[in-house]
Each structure stands twice: as C-alpha cells, then as structure tokens.
C-alpha cells in the first residue's frame, strides 16, 4: 500500500507540471450570466437504490465490483463499494460539506485515494449546482458555476433535455469528466468518470 501511495504522489507531481489544455466548452456562445440553481437530475430519489456493476482502473491496476449509491437525506448520500462476491471494500457518506468513512479495508486506507473518492462523489452527487453562466449552442446548453474550489460545466442535450456530461475544471484545466448515458428518470444507465491528471478511470453500468 505504501508503494501505491508513492506512485500516487509521484504521478500527481508529474501531472502538475504536464497539465492538459485550457478547458472551454466548444460550439457555444455565452448567452446569460444570471445565477440559478441547477438541480442534479440523478441519484435524487430517496426511495431508489442505485446499483452499478463497476470496473475501476487505478494506476494500472484493475478492480471489479459493485457500487451502491443511496440518497439518505436532503443533502447526503451513502456509497458502498463491494467486490463481486459481496465483500464490502469501502462504505462512506458524502454531502456538500462532509465526508464520513463508515468502513474501509486496510488495503485501501490511503489519504490520497480517499480524497479522490470524496471529490469524485461529491461532484457527482451535489443535490444542486449553483451556476452563473449559460452558454448556448445548436445541440447543447452549458451551465457553468463555481463548485468545490473549481468550476463545474454541466452539458445538457437540448433535444432530449438531459445532462450528458459534467466537466470539473481548476484554473481553466479540465481535471475530471463525468459522462452520463442511457438515463431513465433519476437513474443513469451508464456512467464514466475519467481523471485527466491521474490514471484513474471508473466505469459504472446499472444492474
């Protein structure tokens, strides 16, 4: 585990100096700077169990399992990752202001890894996003606003009116992309979380 921690640190440092290009939504123009709350359309039904078959690629290692997400109150979600056999690997609660780990196996106890999970799932599960810029294009509307010490860009498909991409940027560099597919009501059928400054890729398919 110490080796993994060293790898994480080294790669983090490397990527600070080799950051990716400036992020700007394409083929859209700024149409308004009015502030509003964009309600997160996903993971919002308190009666629903959101269960996903998951594959995680982290620093060249692959891990398969099942991710479970449940909204447990207005602000908070509970998230559990198990192996395919059902063994719990991590169990945590996340809200816009708090992150509590209920259980974690020793092999995953790593501050950096926990910070990554906290950031990813907080961004994914915000009940709403405060946006102050609206960009409009032929096929999409993009809302942008400050969130989590960075900027969130929410890409909405104009024809089908659904959130298909969330980009998280810091200092104009894209750091994390969340892609949503096959949505049905509050349930996303397929979700991909990709990091641009760390070799981490999480793929989730509804089961």
């Amino acid at each position, binding site marked *: 585990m110490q080796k993994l921690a060293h790898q994480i640190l080294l790669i983090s440092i490397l990527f600070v100096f080799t950051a990716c290009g400036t992020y700007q939504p394409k083929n859209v123009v700024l149409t308004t700077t009015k502030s509003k709350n964009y309600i997160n359309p996903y993971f919002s039904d308190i*009666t*629903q*169990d959101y*269960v996903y*078959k998951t*594959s995680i690629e982290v620093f060249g290692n*692959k891990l*398969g399992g*099942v991710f*479970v997400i*449940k909204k*447990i109150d207005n602000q908070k979600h*509970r998230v*559990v990752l*198990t192996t*395919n*056999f*059902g*063994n*719990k690997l991590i*169990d945590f609660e996340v809200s816009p202001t708090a992150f509590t780990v*209920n*259980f974690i*196996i*020793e092999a995953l106890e790593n501050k950096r890894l926990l910070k990554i999970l906290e950031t990813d799932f907080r961004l994914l599960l915000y009940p709403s996003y405060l946006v102050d810029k609206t960009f409009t294009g032929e096929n999409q509307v993009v809302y942008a606003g400050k969130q989590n010490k960075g900027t969130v860009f929410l890409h909405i498909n104009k024809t089908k009116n659904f959130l298909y991409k969330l980009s998280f940027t810091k200092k104009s560099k894209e750091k994390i992309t969340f892609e949503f597919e096959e949505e049905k009501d509050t349930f996303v059928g397929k979700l991909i979380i990709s990091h641009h400054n760390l070799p981490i890729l999480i793929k989730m*398919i509804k*089961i």
Partner: protein
Amino acid sequence: MIKIQQVLFCVTLFFTMQLSTLAQEEKLSSTEMEDFKRKVIKHSSGIKSLKTNFVQYKHLGFLSKDIETSGNMVFKAPYLLHWQYTNPYQYSIIFKDGKIHINDQGDKSSFDASSNKMFEKINKLIVGSVSGNMFDENEFSISYYKNKTHYIAKFVPKSEDLKQVINEIEMYFPLTKLLVAQVKLNESSGDYTKIVFKNQQLNAKISTSDFTN
C-alpha cells in the same frame, strides 16, 4: 466490580437466550456435535465433484431491498473451482493450478496466486463452504446449532487477515442431507451476504471445459 461483571454476564446471557429463542436455534450437545462433524467430514471426503446453481443476496441495511445476483459453480476435488455469475452481469473466477483466472464481462486477466497466502485461504474458504468441510479449529472458532430444518455451523476467523474480510460465516446443512444448502457471511455492521445453492449435482461428470473462462 464483581457485581458489575455479574450483571453484565446476566444481561449477556439474557440477550443470548432471547436471540437464540427468536431464531429458534439450539446449541448442539457435545455428542450431537461430534456426530454431526464426523458425518459431514465423511460425506465431504466422498465429494469428487460438485455442480450447483446459486443465488446470492447482498444485504445492506440502508437499501430498500437486497442486491440479487445468480450463477453457477463447478468444483472438482481437491481445489479446482469455477465460480461464475451470469445474472445480472457476467463475471467468472477460476482457481486452477495456483493461478486465478478472471473474466469480467469479456475482460480477461490471470495472475499467480500460489505465493499469496490470502488467496490460498480464500480458495480453501470457498471450497470448504461448498463441500461443508471447513472444520479447521486453528483457523476458526466454531460453534454448532440446529433449528427445525437445518444444522448450522458458525465459524469466526481467528487470523487477522481473514477477520478483515469476514466477521462470521454461517453454514446451513439440511437435517436430512449433509451438503451445504446455504452460506451466510456476516459483517460486524449487521450487513451480510447470503448464498443459497440450488440444483446441487454431486459427483456429476466434469470436463476440462468447465474450468476455462
């Protein structure tokens, strides 16, 4: 101090009795226990192969219903094992010749497990769960019960590495049959994984293709 201990003992005893009454389980006498163990060990030593379907229920207290997955399993004595989920997703794992082969929805990988004691223990654990012979007193603290339909053996791991993964294992043997019908893996939080075996075929014909994924 002695008084507090006595009170605690009585409270513990009371709740233990309450729980066991609720579950209608009674502890086996030492004669029953030895008889049961002897029969299971004898029976499992006659298992050359086993094919079975299974349904797995993952219970997490905060969910509205258990997560249900199902599949099949093929075992060939002593340690050849293919565990396969087919619904709602495809995932299979084979323990063969010191190696582990995984096929995760078409994504295949293999690695050497012979040098990893933890994998060796997990393999033994699954094989033991399937055959019923897991009576390793060095590895587990074991207690024995029965209810109206089943014998129940409860295993608490002794080693720290296994404790990390499992808090307690319960195996259910039908009173009339000495083959494991259900395995329950309990977590300290109260969450659990329950695996129910169906259509068990003892010493069925096994081919090499049963152990490829």
